[in-house]
């Protein structure tokens, strides 16, 4: 199961444009005029997550997958209008108690290439 550990995916782009930020803020009950909500970064990590779970080499049984844990850490929060890039890398792939624990680390960078948000997504596959 571990041959996919360390595999890196192509970067994906997503924009914190005003309409996207407003829609996301309204969906999570945040003030749409107060900037980019913290978990807006999920828009990027959802796309890197899709790269991993649809990767044939990762051999993910999608019907048996649940999102187990999620963590973000911020060097700084993006501001409205920024263009962002997310790049995913498989961090771990472990079997425990008959379950598979697959971790995707995603680095989100600003337009200058500086990392600003890190995401760790743990998927559990029954």
């Amino acid at each position, binding site marked *: 199961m571990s041959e996919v550990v360390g595999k890196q995916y192509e970067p994906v782009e997503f924009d914190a444009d005003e309409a996207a930020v407003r829609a*996301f803020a309204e969906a*999570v009950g*945040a003030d749409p005029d107060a900037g980019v*909500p913290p978990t807006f970064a999920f828009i990027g990590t*959802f796309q890197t997550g899709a790269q991993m779970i649809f990767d044939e080499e990762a051999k993910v049984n999608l019907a048996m997958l649940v999102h*187990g844990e999620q963590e973000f850490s911020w060097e700084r929060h993006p501001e409205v209008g920024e263009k962002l890039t997310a790049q995913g890398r498989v961090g771990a792939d472990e079997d425990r108690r008959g379950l598979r624990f697959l971790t995707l680390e995603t680095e989100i960078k600003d337009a200058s290439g500086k990392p600003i948000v890190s995401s*760790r997504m743990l998927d559990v596959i029954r």
Partner: protein
Amino acid sequence: MQAGDELPQHSVEISREQIAAYAEASGDRNPIHLDEEFAKSVGLPGVIAHGMLQMGLLATWLTQTVGDHRKLKRLGVRFAGMALPGDTLTFGGRVASVDGGVARLEVWGQNQRGERVLTKGIAEVQTG
């Protein structure tokens, strides 16, 4: 903020419309969140909220609690339970420690039956 302080709790009722709005805004349009029949066909009681919607609501509560989301340095949760339309989620937490201008918080989300849906929640927030 001081170690041991309890954070003011906040409750939110989850609606079908909010789940649909989150699906559009986040890009996660998995039919388990949108299509009642599909959700039932895969053994769920009906459409469920995204775990990331639960976390997003937790982050909104935390932002309101600390005043500005830009103070948030870290946020992590375990998804321990489902939330369905009509469920009311309550978010809360306490200050575990304060050190070097950073408060470490333990945070959680639970439903109206007192069942924890977000566990192992940790947040780090800049103080001042």
